[in-house]
């Protein structure tokens, strides 16, 4: 039982970190946001495992859900604006 839990914890952590890594390295705004939402949902799952169901609910609804919705709207605007010329380097559309 304990060994199983240990392996489960390790897998969960590795998935979480992997998801975070692909989130920060993805250039396309919309894709990055969707990965971020997935990350938030997985984080909620991890917190449920750590006996923090209140936080799991809040993270899923606010951290992933509403932050994600806000960012998706922004990403849609961002890709709408640069439909025409440069789809290129990420550093170009600086704030």
């Amino acid at each position: 039982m304990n060994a199983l839990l240990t392996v489960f914890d390790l897998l969960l952590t590795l998935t979480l970190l992997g998801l975070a890594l692909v989130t920060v390295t993805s250039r396309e705004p919309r894709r990055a946001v969707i990965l971020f939402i997935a990350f938030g949902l997985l984080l909620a799952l991890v917190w449920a495992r750590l006996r923090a169901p209140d936080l799991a609910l809040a993270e899923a609804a606010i951290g992933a859900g509403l932050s994600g919705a806000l960012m998706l709207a922004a990403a849609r605007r961002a890709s709408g604006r640069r439909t025409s010329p440069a789809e290129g380097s990420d550093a170009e559309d600086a704030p």
Partner: protein
Amino acid sequence: MTDQVLYAQLLYGGSGIILVLLGLWSFLVHAALLRKLIAINLMGAGVFHILVAIAYRGIDTPPDPVPHALVLTGIVVAVSATALALAFGKRLDQVDD
């Protein structure tokens, strides 16, 4: 504290630290607002993850509610800041057009 709990605290707390570093790296090297915001939210998630990890006291022991309350506060602060920053970004787009 049993070894099982210590292992979980170190594993999850350690991954929280990695999340903070990953977010910090992304915040420093990426210029686009959306990527900076994702980065800072990831950093926040890392800090929250550390707090959740130290609140954990075993699979059948009630966890420490104080860090949980801090994290809940932090989540709401994070979404507020994200919303405000995105509104700033939207305004910049409008002024540019």
